[in-house]
């Protein structure tokens, strides 16, 4: 009976993995085929890879876009994690009615569709003279109610005895946050980092509006302009997509160990 269920679980997970991985495989295959082969649905590796790569590098300044995306995603993720975890810690550990009300208000900010605030936001950044800079892309989402909420919910299971013990040892509140809370919550930070990095890396609508010159463009903007020509070359698009996807996969690889190691391990 035991064995049966283990096999069942594997079968289920294998099925889920195949379904999930399929598009990825398709992308990798597509990268090596010509546009008309992709359109016809050819599902085997071809010999167009170097051709597609050369054409892509010819048509776009991929390195520059990659660098722009990296700056925005890395700086943005670090700032967002620190600020949001501070707030999540503050709202949950020192919970008061006033703070609850403030948090409720903040929650409203994530319920507004972005298209509706884009124009006022754009006007605001224009007045601040910050359009066309990485800061303009990072700042509107540098703290989000979403991430604060995530940290708050995870903090609910944070063992408060640890804080008490720290206070007995004479640590100040900021020290408790940096040297007790932060290391203990490593799995939460890891998950938050993956999600936040992904959001910055893939963000499209706002960078499209806020970045104005060709040399500031991020990768998703490049992919989007490739995909919309009258006669799109899907081979080139596939290469661009693979390049765009890889860093997030890499970040996931690097961080996933963090949230399976377990909290207890990291406190010891």
């Amino acid at each position, binding site marked *: 009976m035991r064995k049966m269920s283990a096999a069942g679980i594997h079968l289920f997970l294998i099925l889920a993995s195949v379904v999930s991985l399929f598009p990825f495989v398709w992308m990798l295959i597509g990268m090596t085929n010509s*546009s*008309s082969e992709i*359109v*016809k*649905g050819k599902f085997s590796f071809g010999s167009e890879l170097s051709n597609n790569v050369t054409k892509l590098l010819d*048509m776009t300044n991929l390195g520059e876009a990659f660098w722009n995306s990296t*700056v925005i995603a*890395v*700086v943005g993720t*670090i*700032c967002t994690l*620190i600020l949001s975890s501070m707030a999540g810690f503050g709202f949950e550990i020192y919970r008061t009615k006033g703070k609850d009300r403030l948090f409720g208000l903040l929650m409203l900010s994530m319920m507004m569709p972005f298209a509706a605030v*884009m*124009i*006022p936001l*754009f*006007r605001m950044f*224009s007045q601040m*003279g*910050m*359009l*066309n*800079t*990485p*800061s*303009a892309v*990072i*700042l509107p989402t540098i703290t989000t109610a979403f991430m604060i909420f995530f940290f708050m919910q995870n903090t609910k299971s944070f063992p408060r005895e640890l804080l008490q013990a720290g206070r007995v040892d004479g640590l100040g509140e900021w020290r408790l946050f*940096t*040297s007790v809370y*932060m*290391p203990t919550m490593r799995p939460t930070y890891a998950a938050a980092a993956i999600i936040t990095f992904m959001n910055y890396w893939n963000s499209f*609508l706002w960078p*499209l*509006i806020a970045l*104005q*010159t*060709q040399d500031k463009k991020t990768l998703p*903007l490049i992919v*989007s*302009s490739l*995909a*919309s*020509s*009258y*006669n*799109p070359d*899907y081979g080139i698009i596939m290469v661009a997509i693979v390049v765009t996807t890889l860093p997030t996969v890499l970040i996931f690889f690097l961080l996933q160990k963090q949230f399976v190691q377990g909290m207890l391990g*990291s406190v010891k």
Partner: protein
Amino acid sequence: MKKLLSVLLLVSMTASLLAACGSSKSSESTEKGAANESAGSTATKKVVAWAWDPSFNGAALKIAEELYAKENPGFELEVVDMAKTDLEQKLNTNLAAGVKEGLPDIILVNDPNIQKYVTAYPNTFADFTDKVDFKQFSQYKVDALTIDGKVYGVPFDIGVTGMFYRSDYLEEAGYKAEDLENITWDQYIEIGKVVKEKTGKYMATINPNDEALTSILLQSGGSWYITPDNKGNFVDNPVMTDTLRVYKGISDSGIAKPVTGWSEFVGSFNAGDVATVVSGVWQIASIMDAKDQSGKWKVAPIPRLNVEGAVNASNEGGSSWFVLDGSANKDLAIDFLAKTIGSSSEFYERFLNENGGVGSFIPSFSSEAYSQTSEFFGGQAIYSDFTKWSTEVPGITLGMYTQEAKDALKNELPNILNGADLTQSLANIQKLFEQQVQ
């Protein structure tokens, strides 16, 4: 370990915040510098343009730049490429926010959007009425650019339509080239049935989610989704009624292969699944992508509707160049466009030879470039055929609510295809449209 981690985090936080601030500072100053430069001297010969296809309209601008720079040394053009929808979004956001910063001097506008932009953002686009000799352009193209007697841009590429067909399939079904000239849509459907029976191939593709075919049919009858004064044009419009009758006929007869998107549409003819493609002249590039089909294609005029005044010619898509009235380099941008895309036959010849683009500049039609024959199309002089048809395209006013009207139609189309009463359906569409544009 944990101390190290937290110290690291803090350090990187400060560093990154500083970096973020620093970068905003530095680029702010360079931005200001650039602004001063362009405001300070009209001698700057740099013009910025937004376009959406680097291998097509972007490339055209590069040709124009080369031509213009010969007479005007030091002239420089920067083309910013982005997707068409992205461009429209950016333009709308900038104009609605009233922010001039970051806007280009020249912008590419899709023809159905012309009136929408000019009306929604008054005093934003430069008047070209006296800058270009519009008599040299196809009338229907100029009609699209004219609002209240003023012409708001330079006509660029056109989408004059043709019926591309696989001569091998049609021969197999027993049809010769002349059997496909000057036919009606009802004849087209009959031919389609024979083709389907004899060759097993579909005659066409159909996509109820895409308005390309209905738009082509309407314009070939000299009508549009909306009237020139921006009212719905669904009720009591014989062209609209016949358009939907034909559309339903194609759908019902089983001669059309259903497709659900652009790549599927292109894939269907690249894979040889369909015998005809009714589309704009710019489709040539995608058709020629299937190199193994060289010599098997030909192109004939499109079929016509069964209403008075309907012709065997229409248009799908096409765009024009606008100049922003508030731009610092307005006069230079106007002069640049007027002297190249607005009056140079050489430009249009090169645009055709290098990028396969067809314009509406009549003097260029008699050039060598336009009379060339194509191996791929069995030696047919396709461009001179297309340009001949382009002079027959009925001129219409596209109005400012084209997209709203298309969506209202799309909403009811499934019912029409399922056999709902057409008069009732058209009344529904008209009502929905009026609700949308209040």
